[in-house]
């Protein structure tokens, strides 16, 4: 056996072996889709597309699933997942919009404005932010930010105003969005910085020679040239934010409640749950087939969104390749 390895390989055999190894990943992706789809099928089959809609209390629906036995009746699969989908959309959207503004501004700061010494500090510091594990963010959120918001930011009047529907503890939408923004901003900064610094310097110099100030040249020329990369960064960050499970499960209050935008600023303190954090919160209940199928349906929805975002990212990067900018 070892003798065979030590002797030189015939080239065609090496090529086939390496090709087979490469295909393994493709097989895993197909298996992932198939497995998750098979497990999720009963949940969709019993509810149809109204599964995505709203109606009834999600908490009651899930607890009745947990109560069913090994062979659940068709009625046990009843679920309306809108509160979770809504929670996912609202956290992701808010974090990406906030993060986009912050990351574009701080990329300008890093590439253009910061003195060399400050840049030398800022880059490793932002890389550190990117590599902090999500559970550490969650821990800081639940032990520092949530009590602070609960005790000092929420006024007693706000707690009373919504006390009939939900209890405000501090854990909720606002804290989740803030931490999620901090988590996805470094990813976007990495991509945007790379794009900004790969725009030819002469373009910006040309603008400055025409008499505009450096900041305006940055905004009008360099940033505009890097637009596809900024969109690509936003897509990547969206994918990351959609799938964040552990941190959201820790700081979002974990209630199957859809924050009501009609409540004004109080909405920031209302608890919620996202698709990904619901899987973490309920994973101990996979013994009940109805709940198991429902959790896999959540996973299938996330997988589908990741697919769509991956295709979108590919399409966005096409014009980038034409300009030979790596995205």
């Amino acid at each position, binding site marked *: 056996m070892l003798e065979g390895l030590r002797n030189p390989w015939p080239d065609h055999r090496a090529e086939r072996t390496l090709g087979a190894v490469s295909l393994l990943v493709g097989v895993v992706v197909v298996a*992932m889709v198939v497995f998750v789809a098979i497990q999720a099928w009963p949940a969709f089959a019993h509810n149809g597309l109204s599964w995505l809609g709203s109606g009834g209390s999600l908490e009651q629906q899930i607890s009745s699933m947990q109560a069913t036995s090994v062979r659940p009746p068709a009625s046990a699969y009843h679920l309306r997942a809108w509160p979770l989908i809504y929670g996912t959309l609202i956290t992701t959207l808010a974090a990406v919009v906030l993060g986009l503004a912050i990351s574009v501004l701080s990329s300008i700061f890093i590439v253009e404005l910061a003195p060399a010494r400050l840049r030398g500090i800022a880059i490793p510091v932002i890389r550190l932010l990117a590599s902090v594990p999500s559970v550490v963010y969650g821990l800081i959120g639940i032990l520092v930010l949530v009590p602070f918001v609960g005790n000092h930011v929420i006024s007693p009047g706000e707690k009373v105003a919504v006390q009939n529907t939900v209890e405000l503890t501090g854990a909720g939408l606002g804290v989740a969005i803030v931490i999620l923004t901090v988590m996805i901003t470094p990813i976007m900064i990495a991509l945007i910085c790379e794009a900004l610094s790969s725009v030819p310097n002469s373009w910006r110099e040309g603008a400055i020679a025409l008499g505009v100030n450096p900041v305006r040249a940055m905004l009008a020329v360099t940033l505009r040239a890097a637009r596809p990369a900024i969109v690509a960064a936003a897509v990547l960050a969206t994918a990351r934010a959609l799938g964040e499970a552990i941190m959201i499960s820790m700081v979002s209050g974990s209630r199957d409640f859809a924050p009501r935008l009609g409540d004004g600023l109080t909405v920031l303190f209302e608890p919620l749950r996202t698709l990904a954090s619901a899987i973490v919160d309920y*994973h101990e209940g996979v013994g009940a087939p109805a709940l198991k199928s429902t959790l896999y349906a959540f*996973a299938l929805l996330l997988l589908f969104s990741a697919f769509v975002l991956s295709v979108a990212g590919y399409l966005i990067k096409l014009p980038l390749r034409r300009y030979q900018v790596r995205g």
Partner: protein
Amino acid sequence: MSTLVAYETGSPQPMRSGPGKRSSPLHWRWSDRLALAFAWIAGLGLCAIAAAIALYMGYRGIQYLRPNLLFSRPQVSLSQAGSGGFLDPMAGTLLLCAIGITLAVPVAVGSAVWIAEYGRPAWLARIVESSIEIVAGTPDIVIAVFGLALFQLPLFAPFSFTASGGGVFGRSFIAAGAMMSLIALPPMFVATRDGLQAVPAHMREAAFALGKTRIATIRRVLLPSVRSNMAAGVTLGVSRIIGDTAIVVLLLGGTPRLESQGSVPGLGLLRGTGSTLTSYVYENSPAGEGGAPQKAYAAAVVLMLFVLGLNLIVDRIGRSSAQTTGRTVTGGVL
């Protein structure tokens, strides 16, 4: 000559060099001044957040991290004083890294070599590249539930904890490690592929001219020359595995100690359940069952130190490789 002298001495007002009055932000349009201010605020604000996190965790570490926590095993106890340390979770983290990296390295390096050096037929190469991209974009929680479905198959029963009734649990170090290899694979693949593509063509041509076959060139010339890229990729993969929580919470069984299954010593451990630093932090935070925030802080500090160390290693590899070859290992500014 004379014109030059006239230019130098004879012009009534010497030309001003350097930036004129436009260089002072005080004379800019207000929108530009606003953009300038916000850019400084955003950049410095992010640095301040990072500094706050680092200082706060450092403070909690000094407060709660004691050497005996590192060397004692977790106990089941109601009080924080009696619940022991996190020796087992640290061992679990290392074991999971070892399994994940062992599984991921051959696949990542193999497919990177195939993509960069063979890559025929082109449609197949494209399928491989996009499936790795899909794996990179899939949330870890989805990978975790996929692992749960996979390892609950009767076929994989020998790899995990099996209940007395014959029900397959699907939770073990092998199950979690296999899924961890999926999240560690994309950075390793990208680093190796980019390294191979950056090797100048004349190195291959020289090897071919000496009569080496393609695979011999790869083994003796190309792979040794991208060693630092592979090292950086592996380090990135390790830091992904160390930081991941969702897969551990769903697939490792959540027992505080390493629990072996079966009598075979090595295999029993791999089939058994346990916890890692991340799941230890999660379980001891108010989100989990044990309300032991001091232990959670201490473990989180150790986790942060691991991650910082890995960051430094990537930095070091990147710097030394950039010195010798003039290119970065991971690509990009950050």
